[in-house]
C-alpha cells in the first residue's frame, strides 16, 4: 500500500534533515531547500541519492532538479525565463508550485520553486507511477 502524504512527509523530513544537517522542526512543507534550509549544489545530489535509497526509486538526471534548461538561450533571456522556458520548466518539474514564480520568472527566484512540498509531490507521483 502506498504511504500516506503524512508518512511520506515524515520520511522526507528525515532525509532532508540528514542531508542538510537541519533540525526536523525546520523542515516544514513550505521551506525552500536553498533559502530556508541552506542547501548547496552538491546537496541536491545527496538528496537524490538518499531519496533513491529511502524509497527504492530511480531518479533520472534532471527529473527532480532540472539542469539543462538554464543553459538554453531559447528558454532564458536577460536572467528571466521566456514563455517557452516557463512551459518547458513546468513540463519538466510538474511537482513544483509555479503560482508565485510565473508572475515574475526571474532566475534568481527559481530556487524558491524547490520546497519540501516539491519533494513530497515528486516522490508521491513517483511512487504512484511505480
Amino acid at each position, binding site marked *: 500500500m502506498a504511504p500516506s502524504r503524512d508518512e511520506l512527509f515524515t520520511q522526507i523530513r528525515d532525509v532532508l534533515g*540528514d542531508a542538510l544537517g537541519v533540525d526536523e522542526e525546520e523542515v516544514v512543507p513550505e521551506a525552500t531547500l536553498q533559502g530556508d534550509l541552506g542547501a548547496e549544489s*552538491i546537496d541536491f*545530489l*545527496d538528496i537524490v*541519492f538518499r531519496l*533513491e*535509497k529511502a524509497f527504492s526509486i530511480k531518479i533520472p*538526471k534532471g527529473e527532480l532538479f532540472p539542469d539543462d534548461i538554464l543553459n538554453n538561450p531559447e528558454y532564458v533571456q536577460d536572467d528571466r525565463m521566456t514563455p517557452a522556458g516557463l512551459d518547458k520548466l513546468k513540463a519538466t518539474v510538474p511537482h513544483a508550485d509555479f503560482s508565485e514564480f510565473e508572475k515574475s520568472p526571474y532566475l534568481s527566484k527559481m530556487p524558491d520553486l524547490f520546497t519540501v512540498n516539491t519533494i513530497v509531490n515528486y516522490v508521491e507521483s513517483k511512487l504512484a507511477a511505480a
Partner: protein
Amino acid sequence: MRWIWIDAFVEFVSGERASAVKNVTLAEEHLRDHFPGYPVMPASLIIEGMAQTAGILVGEARGFAENVILAKIRTAEFDDYAVPGDQLRYDAVIESLDERAAATSGTVLKNGKPIGRVDLIFSHVNQADRPADMPDHNFVFTGQFMNLLTAFRSQGGSGGDQPDGR
C-alpha cells in the same frame, strides 16, 4: 611530501567495496606539531585516507573515465585516536553510483577495531563539463594512486582495472 594517505589495498571488489590500510608512523612530519609531545593522526587525514580509498573504488568502477572529486563529507565521526604504531584500515562501500556522482559509506578501524565512520559524496567531472581552470587530463588518478592497484594485483588481488595509460 607525497599526498597519499593509504599504504596498500588489502581488498578490492570492483564497483562494490575496497579496503586499504595505513600504518601511522612517527616519521610523518606533521606529527611533530599535531601535537608536540603527543603525536596523534589528524582526523582530517583519516578522512583523506578514506576519500582516497573510496575515490579509487569509485573511479575504477567507471573505468577512470572521469576525475572523481570529493564533494561532500556526509558523516565523519571518530571514537578514538590513532597514534604512531597503529594500523588504520579503511573499509569503503559504494552506496550509490551514476554518471553524475557517487556516494560511499565507510568504516575506519584501528588495529582491527572500529573507531569511526566516514561517509562521502564524490562528484564526477568529465572532459565535457570541466571548468575552464581545470586541467584537461585526468589529474586525480595519476601514477601514485594507480600504483596502489598495481601493487595489490601483483600480490594476487584482483578486481581493479587500470586507466588507459595515464
